[in-house]
């Protein structure tokens, strides 16, 4: 398989009140075109920082990232149109309707008006929000917001979708619906990159899983291979095996 994302010797150091905090420490990996890739790790492992660098939101301190052949540091304007991002914090405008939120994103991504209208109708139907299209999202439930957030990230038909903790705080029905959506997008040829704390999610959904701890990449393989190599029954056991049992801050 062809890599669509290449991460090489990536590092990120934050400076705060005279202290240097290494959030990501010499990490290298590839994400292949068309796969569902997951990053797992305890709090402070460096997943979100790696995500932020891959999505061009922050610049690395060292190393390189290439997304679809473009350099993340210098060609962010080429990368942003081809990626979709579902942030952990559901970033919807509460005083805009669902449709207006989608239109805003579509317009920022330069989606042609007619195409955008068709996609909005299609996606709202896909996530069962077609009857709430003209309601303000401030009154939406967590599940509704998550579904809307997902479709607002794909309104421009991106090649790659970054999905930060997609099902945190959602009920089982919504989680199932989100997984179904993820598989659907993947079946359309899109590459999905997750960050998650749910091991069952990574196990059931993902082709390959990267385990991070304290800014380093501890392992990267398919869920089955990770279980085999660590002699673990579940991915949770793999996680504990690779990252330890102590509670992180």
């Amino acid at each position, binding site marked *: 398989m062809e890599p669509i994302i290449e991460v090489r010797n990536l590092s990120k150091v934050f400076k705060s009140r005279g202290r240097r905090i290494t959030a990501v420490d010499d990490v290298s990996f590839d994400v292949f075109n068309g796969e569902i890739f997951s990053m797992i790790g305890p709090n402070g492992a460096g997943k979100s920082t790696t995500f932020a660098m891959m*999505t061009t*939101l*922050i610049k690395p301190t060292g190393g390189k990232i290439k997304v679809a052949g473009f350099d993340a540091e210098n060609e962010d304007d080429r990368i*942003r149109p081809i990626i979709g991002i579902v*942030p952990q*914090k*559901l*970033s919807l405008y*509460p005083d805009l309707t669902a449709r207006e939120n989608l239109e805003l994103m579509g317009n*920022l991504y330069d989606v042609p008006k007619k195409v955008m209208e068709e996609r909005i109708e299609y996606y709202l139907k896909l996530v069962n929000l077609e009857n709430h299209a003209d309601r303000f999202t401030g009154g939406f439930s967590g599940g509704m917001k998550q579904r809307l957030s997902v479709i607002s990230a794909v309104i421009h038909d991106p090649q790659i979708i970054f999905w930060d903790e997609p099902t945190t705080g959602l009920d089982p029905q919504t989680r199932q619906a989100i997984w179904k959506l993820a598989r659907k997008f993947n079946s359309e040829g899109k590459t999905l990159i997750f960050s998650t704390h749910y091991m069952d999610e990574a196990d059931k959904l993902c082709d390959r899983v990267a385990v991070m701890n304290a800014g380093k990449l501890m392992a990267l393989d398919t869920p089955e291979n990770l279980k085999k190599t660590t002699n673990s029954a579940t991915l949770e056991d793999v996680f504990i095996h690779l990252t330890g049992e102590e509670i992180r801050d």
Partner: protein
Amino acid sequence: MDIKTEIRKSWIIMIKEFKQILRKKAFMIPLFLFPIVMIIFFGYGMGGTVKNVDILVINDDTGTASSALVQEIGTFIPKYGDVKMFSIIYTKDMGQSEAEKKIDAGLYKAVLIIPPDYSERVARNESVTLTLLTDSSDTTSSGIIISFMKQLFAGTSGSLVTLNIPDIYGKLQYIDFLTPAVIALTVFIGTIQTMGYAIAGERQDGTLVRIMMTPVSRGAVILGKTLHQLILQLARAVVLIIGAILLLGVKMNGSWLLVALVLIIFTFGAVGLGIAISAVSEDMISFQAISMLVAFPSMFATGVFYPLSSVPDWMRWIAYIVPLTYANDAMRTIMVKGQGLAFIANDLMILLFFAIFYFGLGVYLFRREAA
């Protein structure tokens, strides 16, 4: 629950509230500072007198009576004050229309015209009329000066000396003085507050980051928010001015276009200041606290509610470094005095400087935040 438990739990809640508020340092400062600032500013600003106000005396009389009169005006110190009320500049051979132009330009708060035969007439106990022109766009100072002059002539030269006080800007009231500055103040505070919600608020909600992840530059985000502010604040100003004219009888003697020009430049600066405060604020509470620290001196030290001529020198120095002072002056010059571009050119230049400085600072801090 018994009353003891109720009180204990109330105590726990109270302690929690204190812990939270004490940890918001940015919130604590204005909490205690504002009342002190208000007392100082209002106490000095509304003292009912003026200090070192520039008065032009056109004295075409060479006699001793006029010299004595001018000396008395120039050395007068109010009973409960320690500073001279007037700073006198002398001239002669200047007509009333030229003197009015000096007031239009904001050079003097008043002009006293002493006729050439003043001393002679006073010596002969004949009636004589002096002309007093005042900058009635500043109704407070104007009222104080007129009152002083009337008392002076009633006390010193009997009733034979009379004052001719033409209304050079028509009949004006305090509201005519207040309205242009309140509009500028409203635009200033409104812009900063809404920019706070637009940046610090959006950052807190996560929507700003979401926008930044799309193919949109930071410049475009700033420009979009700035254009929104310009349109919003201009619309507000138009509604406020029309409302003040229709409901309160406020006069609009000048050009709407000039008002728009002043407000556009002023709003640019306020947008930049709002962005800068947003960029250094952790959250909305911090933003509001810091923005109040900026808004309060602007509100009370810049002559919105009382003239700068009535405040002590240290307050005037604060006023000189706050852009609202120049916006107030320009707005009053246009709306009350009905003057044109030439008379507000200085104010516009200073506002432009502030706008470039604050906007540059805001953009720099907003970009640095991303880095």
